[in-house]
């Protein structure tokens, strides 16, 4: 026990308690943070009126519960030994999210303001948006084979166009419109 504490000096002087189960500790803390954020977001809502619930009652009830449970998990992370944090991959998740977001903003175009500057993303339509999203996702894999992916992307795009636009007749714009 004593050796173990020495080999990991993270606890030591400032923190009397060493974090023994980091997955629990940080997981629990994050849940508490979510709950606090929810409490803040719901702070403008009316609470109980007599014995009838206001719009803010249930959110506060659930947020309060989450603080208790989350804090419990975090404390258990201080008291009980647990597995170490797993390492996070960055490239895979980032590219997958990027592919999804690119699809979302290009399928019908998207406008937003970036620090006051209006930004307009043009509507690229189903064909381009699908193919773009496919090719960006491809980058997330460890092994990339360009020719194979280009063919598969084209086939998948064609399949989606036939299925969604022609067979199911969903109102997708097919081609880019500027």
């Amino acid at each position, binding site marked *: 026990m004593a050796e173990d504490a020495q080999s990991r000096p993270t606890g030591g002087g400032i923190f009397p308690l060493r974090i023994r189960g980091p997955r629990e500790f940080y997981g629990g803390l994050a849940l508490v943070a979510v709950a606090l954020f929810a409490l803040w977001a719901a702070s403008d809502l009316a609470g109980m009126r007599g014995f009838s619930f206001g719009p803010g009652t249930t959110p506060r009830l659930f947020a309060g519960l989450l603080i208790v449970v989350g804090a419990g998990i975090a404390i258990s992370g201080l008291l009980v*030994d647990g597995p170490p944090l797993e390492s996070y991959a960055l490239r895979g998740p980032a590219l997958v999210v990027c592919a999804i977001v690119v699809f*979302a*903003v290009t*399928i019908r175009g998207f406008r937003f303001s970036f620090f006051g500057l209006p930004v307009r993303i043009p509507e690229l339509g189903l064909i381009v948006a699908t193919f773009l999203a496919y090719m960006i*996702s491809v980058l997330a894999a460890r092994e990339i084979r360009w020719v194979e992916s280009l063919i598969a992307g084209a086939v998948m795009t064609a399949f989606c166009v036939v299925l969604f636009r022609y067979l199911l007749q969903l109102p997708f714009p097919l081609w880019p419109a500027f």
Partner: protein
Amino acid sequence: MSDLLSNLWLGFSIAGHPINLGFCLLGALVGTLVGVLPGVGTVATIAMLLPITFGLDPVGALIMLAGIYYGAQYGGSTTSILVNIPGEATSVVTCLDGHEMAKQGRAGAALAIAAIGSFFAGCVATVLVAALGQPLTRVALEFGPAEYFALMLLGLIFAVVLAKGSVVKSIAMVVTGLLLSTVGSDLDTGAGRMTLGLPELLDGIGFTNVAMGLFGFAEIIRNLEATGSNREIIEGKIKGLMPTRQDLKDSSWPIARGTVLGSILGILPGGGAVVASFASYTMEKRLAKDPKRFGRGAIEGVAGPESANNAAAQTSFIPLLTLGIPPNAVMALMVGAMTIHGIVPGPQVMTKQPDLFWGMIASMWFGNLMLIIINLPMVGIWVRLLRVPYRILFPSIIVFCCIGIYSIDNSPSDVMIAAIFGVLGYWLVKHDFEPAPLVLAFVLGPLMEDNLRRAMLIARGDTSIFITRPISGVLIFISVAMLVLALLPMIRKRRDEVFVESEN
């Protein structure tokens, strides 16, 4: 009894309609495909295919979606046995003995027993759904807000108790799901709750977006991390599909037990096919004369769980169709599908739309029959599908999910919300949190809140209404007892751990 028969007859005449048979076949085919492909879950698929059902008539749409669900249970076993990769979470235990059997050259027997067991379980469950439908519907009519709230609480507790891993962490997931479900307009006052000023959040967070993010995108992100899995596909022709007489004799009791166990666990809210298959495997191992054979190709280890997961998949329709409460995430999506077609799930479905209710039930029997035909002779084709490399598969799933989510509401922000939940799901897994209880709580949240508020209004703020009303009191008592039972061993274990440490 004659009532039941005439109802079933109505069901069979509707399900037997060529068009509905076609939807049933399509659902079973897609389900098998999904079951075979690892990394494509049932929840994500049904969510993806929701928009496809827009144009169909409600009976056909629901028959197809139901087919996907139980079809996936069949398909999952095929890959478990032949490749040692569970295509679905429900067939994880089938790998243990099924793949061993395949290695010993008995792949055919394992596949056949899995199919026969599933078919038998499916038939029994079909009758069970039909038989329990009416009495439970009558019970449901007695239910007031307090009873509904207590029942849903019981469901969530079951989900917590039956989930893998730490009980406290599952509770945390349930509460998180409940909290997330309160985002959006308040039912009574219409006030926007926790919308952060974003108009997109006024309607709340869509369930399909959450499901697709947590089960679709998160799964992909996680799979990308896994180092190249070794897929040892059993090569060569699978011979001897027919099991021997001894095989049939050995597996008849496990099939029967698995069916009963699965049916019970399927009806329980919070239960479902995954839990059923694990429970059945454990039971068979306990009951076996020689438990050592398990894990080395015992046919009972295939027969029991495969029957159980199929039975559970079907009986989980019972709470949805009679009480209007979805017992798991897949059933929650069925609620979505029903709502799209203007059907409110609950006791009134049976009386107002008898053709839908009985047609769907009867279609399950047809579906099971089709699945046996699809699965056994066509096994080779399904196995060949497994050779599609994941690097081609996963971008296709991403694109398909994106289009699917977008088409539900023509809303780009829904697609982005799903992406956020994808990242959240990845984080949850990294911290050993289970997403399943969160999703169930997210679905039940609005219903629970509504019933809680109504119960409190009726009782004029007196919380004892939940205990004093008999049905609700019993349900609350069971919930508390279950929770205590689940927490006790944990506390005891903690103490043991402390003792172990102090000894060192």
